[in-house]
């Protein structure tokens, strides 16, 4: 099953921010009351996130807004827009490529 790319984007943004802060998955897990495995799965986009967990994660990652972890409108639309690719790839590969682009855009945007 292909996970919803929005969860991958949330997970990627969370991982990028966590690594920026030098925080381990275990430390983050302890702060938000989830298991380390759940944090790992959320970062991989394999586990959906409840709103209160999303808010707690954003706070633990010292972000002012939970939306800092959310896909932007432009990356949300990435999945729907017809990404022009140089080569035909499977739908799964296309989702992975969209995820890379969304994660790169999130990493490139300066965070407050």
């Amino acid at each position, binding site marked *: 099953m292909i996970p919803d790319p929005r969860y991958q984007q949330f997970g990627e943004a969370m991982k990028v921010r966590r690594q920026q802060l030098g925080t381990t998955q275990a430390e983050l897990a302890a702060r938000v009351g989830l298991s380390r495995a759940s944090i790992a799965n959320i970062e991989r986009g394999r586990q959906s996130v409840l709103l209160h967990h999303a808010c707690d994660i954003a706070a633990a990652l010292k972000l002012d807004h939970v939306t800092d972890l959310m896909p932007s409108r432009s990356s949300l639309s990435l999945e729907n827009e017809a990404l*022009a690719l140089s080569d035909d790839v499977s739908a799964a590969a296309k989702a*992975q490529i969209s995820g890379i682009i969304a994660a790169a855009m999130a990493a*490139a945007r300066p965070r407050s």
Partner: protein
Amino acid sequence: MKRADTARARAHARDILTDAGVRAAPVPVEKIIRARGIVVQHAPLADDLSGMAYIREGIGIVGVNALHHPNRQRFTLAHEFAHHELHADILKAEVHVDRGFRVLKRDQLASEGVDWREIEANAFAAELLMPQFLLDTMMDVGGFDLEDDERVEALARRFRVSASALRFRLLA
């Protein structure tokens, strides 16, 4: 069909190594790419995909298949970086996706009509990761036996490339 300008590609790779002040192997390819403002993402991809290059809203992006061997990821990084350095125009229009690089059979590449850009990117990547000036310092003055697997593998380890990539480079 446009012919690949491999001499230009190699010269460009050498200029980048000079700018980065690289004097020893292994070449810090990811650091060099990041220093040029390109965002690098390692992520799991379908096995037949090595990497991708794209420019979105002015931001250069290189994606690498994190499931491949680290040496192969280094070659992919260098190859995708080449597209940014040599073929940036096409990366703004579409996501450039690379499957496995049929890097070892250049004659075959040409006969298969493989894009000239791929040939240039491979030449650039080979020179970036295994620059001639470093090869010269590491190889015996008396010559180097490509049949000597142990020596080829030892040298490949120092460059953090695959033995086959090194053989290709030495034969080029």
